[in-house]
């Protein structure tokens, strides 16, 4: 009798999960804010030895994706992804370079060799609640003398959300 009870509970659990999956997939397909089933095509990094377009303060400032996009389009900024390497490989803003915050000390010699101190850096982490973008931006500015450092306030999530409103991008011909 108890077996029957347990079986009933398990079947009901399965029904709830199945309903959740079906509604979730249907809602996701219908919603303009829904998530994609796969990553966007990755693109190689943009110009890496670029100069800032205008004077920016030494104190890292928070910017929006819209502002970062303008800097990217002007080829004047390097996006720095400070999330863990695995998260970077699962998906990142096209053109971004990976510099995991927890491995910063180890990776900085190579980074400094590649990007000069005048390069405009836009640092981002996962979303608006993570602190590593702001912290890393400060470290880059204060400890490594990068003069033009900003951080993307909404992080990777802000970029993802912006993709839903943006028109389809042309294929990269590089």
């Amino acid at each position: 009798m108890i077996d029957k009870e347990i079986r009933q509970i398990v079947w009901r659990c399965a029904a709830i999960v199945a309903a959740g999956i079906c509604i979730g997939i249907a809602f996701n397909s219908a919603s303009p804010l829904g998530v994609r089933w796969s990553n966007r095509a990755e693109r190689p990094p943009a110009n890496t030895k670029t100069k800032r377009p205008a004077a920016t303060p030494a104190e890292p400032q928070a910017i929006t994706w819209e502002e970062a996009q303008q800097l990217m389009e002007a080829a004047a900024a390097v996006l720095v992804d400070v999330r863990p390497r695995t998260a970077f490989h699962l998906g990142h803003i096209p053109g971004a370079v990976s510099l995991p915050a927890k491995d910063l000390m180890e990776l900085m010699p190579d980074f400094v060799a590649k990007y000069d101190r005048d390069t405009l850096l836009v640092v981002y982490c996962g979303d608006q609640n993570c602190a590593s973008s702001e912290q890393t931006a400060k470290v880059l500015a204060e400890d490594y003398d990068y003069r033009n450092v900003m951080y993307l306030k909404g992080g990777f999530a802000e970029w993802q959300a912006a993709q839903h409103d943006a028109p389809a991008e042309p294929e990269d011909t590089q």
Partner: protein
Amino acid sequence: MKIKFNIKTAVRWLLGVLFIWAAISKLANPTQFLASTLAYEMPLPDVLTRLAAMAVPWVELLCGLILLANVWTESALALSLVMFVAFIYATGQAWFRGLDISCGCFDLHMLGIGSGSPIVRFIESARFAFFRNIALTAAVVYLLIPALRRKSGARSAD
């Protein structure tokens, strides 16, 4: 309809409301929830993580509604137990590995609370979420075990 109010009812309602709040927080911004999920760096295929990002909020919503309605309660509690164990593993491994990520569990902005202060960051951290999930698991076990005993006892009496 007479509602018998006791501690167990209050805990069941609390779990129901928390599930609904968590679900609405995630459904309001699916991409942010996906980003939060990916940031946990769980050893799961990418497509499974994305499927979880689509389905988990709805499973939470259904569990919340079922707990409030008090039908199929044992099933909703059993499913909640499975989810909380998974959440404990996810937040625990994130905390252990020192990942600087936000939990992605509840949207505090819905309560008018900003995300800038250190206290809010701590509340949204994986470490806090780990202990919160343990407390919620204890609440689920507190409701589930007596419910199962009651049910098996009622059957035995038949």
